[in-house]
């Protein structure tokens, strides 16, 4: 389906380590990693996204969180939030 295709396309980008789709409760719906790691990512990032969103909205109620990028030494975690779901992609940006 389209869903598959989109996810596949994202996954095939250069340097992408993992892709995950989390629902509004923080439960992973679709993932390319193993279960335990996914669950860990989901729990932590879900909370962080909620916190970030509330921070943005607190500062300006008209605003909303569109994208969250966490850059670490080893790779970059990108979170795209939405009303019901969360798309998490982990990429290794080094060439």
């Amino acid at each position, binding site marked *: *389906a*389209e*869903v598959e295709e*989109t*996810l596949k*396309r*994202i996954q095939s*980008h*250069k*340097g*992408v380590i993992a892709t995950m*789709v989390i*629902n509004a*409760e923080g*439960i*992973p*719906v*679709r993932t390319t990693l193993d*279960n335990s790691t996914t*669950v860990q990512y*989901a*729990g932590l990032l879900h909370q962080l996204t909620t916190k970030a969103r509330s921070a943005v909205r607190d500062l300006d109620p008209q605003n909303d969180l*569109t*994208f969250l*990028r966490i*850059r670490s030494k080893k790779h*970059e975690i*990108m979170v*795209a939030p*939405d*009303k*019901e*779901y969360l*798309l998490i*992609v982990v*990429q290794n*940006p*080094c*060439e």
Partner: protein
Amino acid sequence: GHPEIFPLVFTTKTQEIFNCRADEDVTEENCFKLIKKEDIIQDMKTRATVSDFHPVKKIILEYPGEELLVVFDAKFQYGQNFYLVASEEAKEDLLKPPETVEEKKDDDEKEEESEEETLEVQPYKPPVHKPWVSLGSEKEVEEESVKETITKIKYRISRVRRKFGAPITFTDKNASHVKDSYLECTSYQDKSFSIKMLEKDVGIQMVPKLREAITQTTWTYPRNAATQYFPIELSNEEKEESLSSGKLKEFLTSVHLRMEIALQQNEIMNAFFDDWKALTEEESSSGGKPHVYLKAYQSFTDLHYFKDRTISCVCWHPTISGIIAVSTRGQLSYEERVNLSDKSLLQQPVILFWCSFDPTHPQLVLECPEDICCFQFSPSDPSIIAGGCINGQVVLWDISQHEEKLQNVKPVADGTEITAVNMVNVSILNKLQCIYMSVGKNGTEPPLVRCCAVSSIQDSHEKPVTDIHWLPDYSEDNQMDATSENRAETSVQLVTCSPDCSILFWDNPAMKPSSEKLKEEDVFGMPIDVPDTSKHLDLCWKPLVQINLCENDTNAEYSPVRISFRELHCQYKTSDVPAKQSLYRERSTSSKNVKVLESISTDLLVGTEDGDIVYSDWKVEIDSDSEKQVSQKHTQKYTIHTETINTLQRSPFFKDIILSIGGQTFAIWKEGVTNGPILHSSCSAGRYTAGKWSLTRPGVFFIGRDDGNIDIWDLLKKTYEPSQFQNISESMITFISPWITSPNQHFLAVSDDLGILHVLEICQTLSQPSENE
């Protein structure tokens, strides 16, 4: 009991005969009946076995007296209703005392008396004083008793009488005046006699080792509650449902654009790249370390095997770290060798295995039929070693039995200990062989391994084999000279070249581990320490393919000294740098295992004896004109070096960069650049004799010279002269081999003409590549 009492059963008949009828003639009170002996005997004779006296017949016959006492045993004290008293004394005792008792006692006590009578069988005898019989106990008593051995010293002390009772005056003394505030009589060791304690009674008790220890974990958060949880997960059906829901689709469509932008941004450039930081690293590496050099780590030599011999080839063991193998060769030239008819003067050529822990004793000795010019470990099975001999033969060894021993070599000074330890480690199957081998040798002798396959002399090269390589997997030649794919993961083929203008491809006979095939009959048939893996191939091993290198126009032949295969994706090629190559393969069609691969490029680079580098193709084609198999055309020929090429090696980092060393120059070539080398050094003072690329830094290579120096060339620093040179030994360097044992330890094995193997440690700057090198 009473030995004189014999219980008897009296039948009524007997009782009538003897007038001792129960309760009539004899009663409880009057229980004694004297019966004449003769009557009894008479009765016994008449009634024989029926007689009640029969059981005690013997006693009656022996009875000394005239009358026997029979006592009525109303209470069945002895088991029967009568008993016979068998001795006179007892009779008297029984008769007399009861009578006396009866006389003395009253009638009231008659019952008691009767009881006493019945109870008392033995008359009371007061103890008779017997003389004391010594049983030996007085000796013990004497031993244990304490007697005074020395006479007591008597002292007599006397004093003048007037001193008794005299008035005494007391004085005060200040304690602090006295030294140490106290007086004492110090003890001192009396030298006049000292008792030497020869024996000491000590009590020893085994106590179990017990130790009590108490620990306490740190209780960082003093809370007495803990939660254990597991995450909520969706079941598979729920996942499927949500995947197909429309909401997810919407979400993804709205989100994926953002995500892709972000991903692409990362791909384009690394926004967080710290340029300053990268600069500092380069600085530190080139920041003038004057002591960039090779540290001497160890040097191996063996006086026994290496006398007057030079080392021809050095190879590190691919899997076992710290093991290095060295092959030796005589230094005599050909004519001298021919003239030397007495072969016994020539030493047995060997390959020695050294371990870095034990520099004086070789770990393993491989016997060679002839001097070995070059050898290689098989990349897939490091226990198989192929070597090329000076007479053109190719030899195989199998050291799988000794793998364990080599792995288990520990840095122990004592050589015997090593063998002892390894004896335990050897499996049962190999035990027979190893025990046999080490019997008769002291522990310091390394085990000797004979070659297990030797090629046939006629089919081998005619001149010394100068280069030998294993072809890695994925390729196999068959007799039809079509390369086909080999699905097995093992290296099965060898390529050798020799100055007799030919390159031979050898098929590795199927090697099975020797431990499986150890049969009884084979063990006895041949020397024990040779694995019976390819015995049948001894001296009849033939090469598969032979390629003669001919020059294009003049039909003269080349004499290759070194060869180097190439390897590229999508085509079959091999490289002569051991390890770390992966093959990419495109298969044209695939239906069976053995396929003829059309898209094979079979280029090869040959360095010849005359200093030519020939770039040619070894695929054999049928020459349509003469209808015989002619090896194809070669494409290029370069004559740059003036002398024999002694090194031809591909860079481990770039597949198409080749280093060639010969004579007084070296050159770096790039495949595809056909008009010459991309770098050609100027003539140096001495001759270059050996060279190798560094394994870790792409721009560094090592060259050995004939004066014992090693030149380290760092192409990033200077391209016109060596960045460093260092003297290693006095004689010519014959072979260089770099190796990495651990991420911090990089070694360079350098062998020289005197037969000494130096292992040098490459310092950090030479081994760590800088950024983007």
